[in-house]
């Protein structure tokens, strides 16, 4: 219709090449997780042995003790993080959105700081503090969970606060005009309105935690607290069997599952309150490093 800009053939080509470059290596890695042989570079037929192979061989994700324990550790950490960071973040978001007094501004900055701090700095900081000051906190699951929660809270705040602003106070005020007490208004009006943002937060925090590498590595205790990304890191240069690819693929599927759930929840919110979908997308994708 309005093709006054000319056909973007060059741009199309660059974009297509970029997409191929960005996805083909991963596609190959996934392909070889299904290799029938032990090689990760020559295809020997299809098999799911690296996912669910013989228990006795201990070679598959399901039965290799180190892969299985990495999967379990990642899931446990993600669940703990999700269950603690989300309520903390939601409360903080509500507080920060409405608290106008002294301290509100600095609290807001404090909340934003973890977002802009490079992960290695946070890893070093947490390592040193658990090593020197809070040494009642054991390295491993506890320290890792504390670290994950700390960097997740701010994401929850960003997501939830966006929704809070979109909702505004009209609904609550209307409820109170109809006779509800302020507490009732919050419990019966505000919280239900926040549910989709809450769900999105759960999913995003889960994805952030399960994808994290740096914090998990800095706060590691021993082999049994290795997470999937740490396992990929330590195994990648050791010419591992395709079971490592299988583990990576499992992680990918879990992450995508969580993000899709988050996306659905966000979309639902977006529809109801006319929020900017692009900005929601940005929040979701932004810090997934």
């Amino acid at each position, binding site marked *: 219709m309005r093709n006054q800009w000319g056909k973007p053939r060059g741009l199309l080509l660059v974009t297509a090449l970029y997409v191929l470059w960005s996805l083909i290596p991963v596609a190959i890695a996934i392909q070889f997780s299904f290799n029938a042989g032990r090689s990760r570079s020559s295809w020997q037929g299809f098999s799911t042995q690296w996912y669910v192979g013989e228990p006795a061989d201990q070679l598959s994700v399901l039965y290799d003790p180190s892969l299985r324990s990495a999967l379990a550790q990642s899931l446990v950490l993600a669940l703990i993080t999700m269950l603690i960071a989300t309520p903390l973040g939601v409360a903080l978001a509500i*507080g920060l959105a409405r608290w106008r007094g002294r301290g509100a501004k600095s609290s807001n900055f404090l909340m934003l700081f973890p977002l802009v701090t490079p992960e290695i700095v946070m890893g070093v900081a947490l390592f*040193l503090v658990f090593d020197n000051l809070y040494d009642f906190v054991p390295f491993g699951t506890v320290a890792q969970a504390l670290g994950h929660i700390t960097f997740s809270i701010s994401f929850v705040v960003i997501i939830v606060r966006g929704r809070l602003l979109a909702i505004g106070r009209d609904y609550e005020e209307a409820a109170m005009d109809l006779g509800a007490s*302020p507490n009732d208004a919050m419990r019966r009006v505000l919280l239900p309105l926040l549910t989709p943002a809450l769900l999105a937060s759960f999913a995003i925090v889960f994805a952030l935690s399960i994808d994290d590498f*740096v914090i998990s590595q800095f706060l590691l205790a021993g082999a049994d607290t290795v997470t999937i990304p740490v396992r990929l890191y330590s195994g990648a240069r050791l010419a591992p069997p395709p079971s490592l690819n299988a583990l990576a693929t499992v992680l990918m599927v879990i992450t995508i599952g969580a993000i899709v759930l988050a996306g659905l929840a966000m979309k639902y919110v977006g529809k109801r309150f006319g929020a900017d979908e692009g900005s929601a997308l940005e929040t979701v994708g932004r810090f997934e490093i």
Partner: protein
Amino acid sequence: MPTNLASGADYDTVGQKRWVWPAFAIPGVVWLCLLFLVPFYAIFAVAMGYIDPILNRPVPEWNPFYWNLTVFAEVLGDLFGGQLGQIALRTIAYVFIASALCVVIGYPVAYFVSRRAGRWRWLWLLLILAPFWINYLMRMMSWVNLLSPEGQVNQFLNAIGIQNLPDWLAGHHLVVILGLVYGYIPFFILPLFAALDRIDDATLEASRDLGASNSQTFWRVTWPLSRNGVLGGLVIIMLPMFGDYYTPNLLSGSPRTRMLGNTIDQFINQTTSQGSVGAALTIVLMVFVAGLMLYYLFSINRATEEARR
């Protein structure tokens, strides 16, 4: 009836007691103080601390009046003219080259998908978003696999008749830089995409109606309007790149391609007796990225403040 509404200093506009909102914020604020601010301070306490002579490990000094600047001074001395200086320069060079490549490759991609992709836009968007959902380490591991001596890259090059191939993973600057580009470019494209997406078509049409050519329109209208997206994207990728240690470790492992993050990782995770050196280097790193951090901090803050109005 909410008779108490709007009157009296103890209540806010929806009749909630004033202390209620801070009370909501308190658990999160306390958490962040204990597990973000205090740890942050611990970096300084360890860098400026002492060494326990028997256990041979750093003892943090929490009181700034007793800070011991020996280690920090040594690190700074080494940074200007010593070995650390070389690592720092290499880190800066890697980050700048990789970021420049991200702009050169990422801009056309973001531009195409946001403005020119036509009815397949959703599919292109999905494709450029896909790397977000794939773990960074998995994406690096895929390249380790492809670039290994018997990997697909060498298989392919052999097949087309190129022999005597190098070991790609044995310390090549270019491999590490391209690895960084590969790893971080999606994080550059997304904010840029969002910025380009917000440009109103009418603005561009107006430019053309006023007689501007395509390239004039691009340089005088689109580019200036997307500059904040480019800046935002650059900040987002440069922050983690400066602290990266896993990419050079996976794609090279040679001292030749060491970055600042590798040295920090070494002193914190491996040679814990030198933890104060690691902490001092972390401060150096923060100084490097302080400008980026502040820019980012204030831009997020501005965005949320605007949304609030």
